């Protein structure tokens, strides 16, 4: 029962909150949808911390896609042995993880020690930071504790379980043998997804990808229905 709760109910609840929360937030809080940049208040530490953290986290994300979303047979078919995979995963994952963690530490310290940044921090900022700390710390620990590839293979346990969640065929049995560090990491991550829409983390979805494709000059036209004045309070 506990297994069912932890590895089926909690993840789905978190994902529902994540998706519905974003929609709700976008609809209700257009002016609050922001990364809440504090660059104005402190620049030096931010430049280093932010770059480390964001690039690190980006590679970590790619690593997760490679390890969890892409099934193990796919690599085998390509002729990538388990050994090779682990070398690649660790060679890429550990620096990325360390960069993200290092960046996080700088940013966290900055938020704690720079008076002006601390004074302008909201509860949401602290909550997001707390979950990020848990997720990154537990993830990094799991990676280091699992350097010996003969121990535990997440590609045959966590991977299928996670893909099961996405395909609505959840099977908590996969999680039977998963070590505690990984379990903590996964639960912390779902916790992060649950609070995500209510924090500044929403800015992830405002990444201006459209700039790659749009024209230099954009004119906005009123929709014919909208042509009459809309000048009223919401």
């Amino acid at each position, binding site marked *: 029962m506990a297994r069912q709760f932890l590895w089926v109910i909690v993840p789905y609840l978190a994902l529902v909150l994540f998706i519905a929360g974003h*929609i709700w937030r*976008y*609809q209700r809080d*257009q*002016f609050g949808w922001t990364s809440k940049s504090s660059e104005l208040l402190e620049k030096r530490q931010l430049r280093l911390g932010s770059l480390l953290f964001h690039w690190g986290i980006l590679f970590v994300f790619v690593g997760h896609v490679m390890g969890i979303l892409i099934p193990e047979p796919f690599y085998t078919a390509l002729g990538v042995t388990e050994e090779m995979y682990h070398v690649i995963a660790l060679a890429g994952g550990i620096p990325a993880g360390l960069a993200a963690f290092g960046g996080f530490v700088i940013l966290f310290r900055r938020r704690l020690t720079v008076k002006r940044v601390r004074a302008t921090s909201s509860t949401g900022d602290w909550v997001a930071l707390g979950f990020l700390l848990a997720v990154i710390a537990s993830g990094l620990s799991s990676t280091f504790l699992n350097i010996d590839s003969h121990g535990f293979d997440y590609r045959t346990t966590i991977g299928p379980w996670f893909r099961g969640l996405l395909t609505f065929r959840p099977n908590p049995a996969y999680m039977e043998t998963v070590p505690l560090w990984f379990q903590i990491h996964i639960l912390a991550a779902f916790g992060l997804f649950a609070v995500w829409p209510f924090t500044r983390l929403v800015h992830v979805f405002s990444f201006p990808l*459209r700039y790659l494709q*749009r*024209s*230099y*000059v*954009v*004119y*906005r*036209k*009123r*929709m014919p229905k*909208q042509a*009459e004045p*809309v*000048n*009223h309070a*919401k």
Partner: protein
Amino acid sequence: MKRKRSPLTNRFKYIRPIERQADGHSETTYGDRAWEDAYRRRWQHDKVVRSTHGVNCTGSCSWNIYVKNGIVTWEGQQLDYPSTGPDMPDFEPRGCPRGASFSWYMYSPLRVKYPYIRGILLDMWREALSHHPNNPLEAWKSIVEDREKAKRYKQARGKGGFVRVSWDEALTLVAASLLYTVVKYGPDRNVGFSPIPAMSMVSHAAGARFMQLMGGPILSFYDWYADLPPASPQIWGDQTDVPESSDWYNAGYIITWGSNVPLTRTPDAHFLAEVRYRGTKVVSVSPDYAESTKFADDWLSVKQGTDGALAMAMGHVILNEYYVKRTVPYFEQYAKTYTDFPFVVTLKQDGGAWTAGRFLLAKDLGKQTGNAEWKPVIYDENTGTFAVPNGTIGTRWEDKGKWNLRLVDEETEQPLEPRLSFLGSEDAVMSIKLPYFTAEGGKTIERAVPVKKVHTEAGDVYVTTVYDLILANYGIDRGIGGVVARSYDDEVPFTPAWQEAITGVDRELVVKIAREFADNAIDTNGRSMIIVGAGINHWFHSDTIYRAVLNLVLFVGAQGVNGGGWAHYVGQEKLRPAEGWQTIALARDWVGPAKLQNGTSFFYFATDQWRYEERPIDELVSPLAKKARYSHPGDYNVLAARLGWLPSYPTFNKNGIELYNEAVSHGARTPEEIGAYVAKQLKKKELQFAIEDPDNEANFPRNLIVWRANLISSSGKGHEYFLKHLLGTTNGLLNDDRNSLRPEEIRWRDEAPEGKLDLLVNLDFRMAGTALYSDVVLPAATWYEKHDLSSTDMHPFIHPFNPAVPPLWEARSDWDIFKSLAKAVSDVAKQAGLKPIKEVVATPLLHDTAQELAQPFGEVKDWSKGETEPIPGKTMPNIHVIERDYTLLYDQMTALGTNVARQPIGTKGIAWTAKEEYEQLKRRLGTVPRASIADGCPDISEAKKAVEAILTLSSTTNGKMAVKAWEALEKKTNLELADLAKEREEECFTFEQITAQPKTVITSPAFSGSEKGGRRYSPFTTNVERLIPWRTLTGRQSFYIDHELMREFGEAMATFKPVLPHRPFSNKRPTKNGKEVVLNYLTPHNKWSVHSMYFDSLPMLTLFRGGPTVWMNKDDAAEAGIADNDWIECFNENGVVVARAVVSHRLPRGMAFMHHAQDRHINVPGTKLTNNRGGTHNSPTRIHVKPTHMIGGYAQLSYGFNYYGPTGNQRDLFVVIRKLEEVDWLEDESASWHGHELG
């Protein structure tokens, strides 16, 4: 209502463009545009209201106030000022960051929202009332006459403990105290203080009117703030009249001298920037690299306080090169017509040496003419005789139409050709002794003047001209001997070389600037201007500095010319609708005369600063006088009160009501008989002036009402003396009076009183210094919550205040507060059964009345020494009898009394009738219906109605009044003048009109310049162009002032006097530990505040260091081991102030700037020197009063409110500065500190 589209669907709507253009360079989408409304709504308001800021900067800028959902969101500059004409920049935009942030205050934590009384007093009051139900006077008596109780609540002042009370309770307490004082001690023991009426004149008038109806004096402020330049009445017989800022644009050459235009006149500074693009040269005279210095082509970095020496040297160059070495027809004609240069002065022999005496008068020559003692003469070249020209002060009060500047003989009407100098037609050349002053003391110098011998009634006398004396004084070499300057490099007074040693300014530069200034005046017919300010005016000897500077503009014929002359901008104001305002403010519509007290004398005695004098006056007088009349400056003030020179309230050591009853019981009936009785009692010494014994509790001021002001801290020079003696609470005074000078005329009491004041009442919207020390604080409406008027001399418009929102919380407008206080007084008076009373009132000999002819020859005749008889209105103050009925106070307060129609209205010695206007007001404002004393009078129960009355009754805002005023002056002068206002005769300003758009005022004789035909205002242009005399002894601009006391102080002519040699401590001082530095302590105006206003506002505090600062030179700081931003303590015997150091190379060594009015409630830590919070900027200050400012009863030196009188100067002071050892915020209650204030 249509549903708003969801942002998310919109988001997807615009992913695909509906069309692309220009090869994909641009595209059109159906993107969401709802966000635009947020920006549209930002500038949509429920209403936009025109108002202004009633702050004491007199900028009088018109602002839009924006209101949204009942909240004032912000303010923006109005842009609709009438144009100055096609060839000039316009006035708009006006405003500065200070004003732009005002709305912050309305909702700030500093806002006073409810009436407050300090808890300890409130408890006593409630208890007393329970013992004396229905008898507030008895209840109040049981508190104030109980020494122990009084001490307890007075000692609690400044220590918090305010309790919210109802309006009724607060007003009843104040009314009880006021009326108790009237009955027990006299109406003149109730005092009101509020400065600068022009900045919100109706609010000022509210309290002033209330006080006058109560019989309490109101205090002057211009002199108390040391913003009054006494040189102005001395030279021109005018308080201060200056050009509007747009007239700077007419100048060809501008010197900014001790005036930091961009900082203090921010909204006007653009004219100074713009005129440079016209080719005008700007010169800056300033010790520090001031903001105004950045405007300048040349910078004269003068040592602070030595500006007089620099000006004398420039005068030396101009006289030498443009009067003696060659002559300039324009200058010469100007000097002959408009200055006293050709007037003749007698020489007097004094112990073998000859010195300059008084003017030669018609009386000396035995001429049979009226007021012969008041008609100085010139020497006429046409007839070769001495003649009395038109326009002297004697002709002014004869009313024979001879008071004008036509150069004709007053008797024969033959044209005169005044002779400037006797050189060439002299009977002899005589050597005279002239005084001059150095840091080591006064000295004399021998100089030669050409003289004529005249036969007078008193025998033969030698005379010379003012011009000859001035040349001798300036040390010009005329080839007739004497110790004069053979070249500019001679180090004799007053050459460029001589000044270089004093001021540090290069002699060549001085010569260059002087020449340029004069050359420009020749080329432009006088468009050379000097903008002067606080930097040279706040000194003890400000008048000698100013006279030296102002002589320059007179020498080159620049005064009374557009774009020329002096421009004094410190504390200046111009209350444009003068007559209407005076009528209401001084309650002339009901009673008179008004009780108007000069502020400096009042505070000097009330705060017992007089007890701490160390430097005998003998050190300041002319070496020719040998010894001063008195050693103690306070004695001169007693003399001034006795002789009717200065007002003196509280007046006698007896209640004026009692004195009246006493006189009546001795058989006196008419006011004359009562005056004679008072004179007799004074002579017998049965009756005393209160200031002969200011520490006698019968003579204390008892109630002080302060509104529109921040007296305790911002303007209270000698802050710690205020706390100790006036308020009787914890203070940081480090001085004692054991070894101080003892006066002769004042009774010395060994034990100095503490807590003279029974009640300090403050009306404010801001919990600042004064409110924190008050016993009762009443919440006042802000400038966006009331109706009022504002005017200034910086521009010719009158701006309205309009309520953007009603007064917030329980606040009321000043008008409504005093109205309700009047109601409370009436009610308490009825309850106490007060009957109508009559009181004896003394007033000084006033300028612009015939009393300025009271004491001839400028001689001091003291009746108390038997030198003459005491005669009211002649040798002593006027004595009047005034009747009051306190039960009717409210009725009088709220209705415009019938005196308006019955008595003439007027200004500056002319009068006309306002009868028609009074009838008009009845119809426009409605009349008071109730059956009372005010039955049928125009209703002015609301501020807006008072505004209309002011506008209708004033000559600057009502064309008909202006024409009547000019016609009155035509009669007096026999000149044609009414055309100056004729073209606007039909105009009468209304409040609605000036709310719609600013309007330029109408030209009126209330002021001396003309706005006719859109002309820019410049002072004295009507004197120069229309030949209206100046209101001085000679009727001309004065170089020479012959009063005995002026000669005693060596100031008959402009001269240089050094800064007072002050030491931080004259007795014991706190132990010296570590490094320190002694600096001249200067308190100039602040960039991010207007006095204390805005200093405590968050938007302004964020702009510079957020708290109290003191600027000092980097080398001085290094000497004391102080680094930038260190906490420091500045102290001397007067007190301590703690602040952060701003270390800069911008300031020269030897001086420290603590910008004015950094109030004590923002970030002030404690200091071990006093075991208390580190004071205010005024803690290390105290005032020094100058006896020559007290002269009265003599032509232009006669008293006028805010016009003449000692200034409350505070610059001649030095402080010790050292690093603060420990920064303690006094927030730890267990600490060893005691006496926390505001804790």
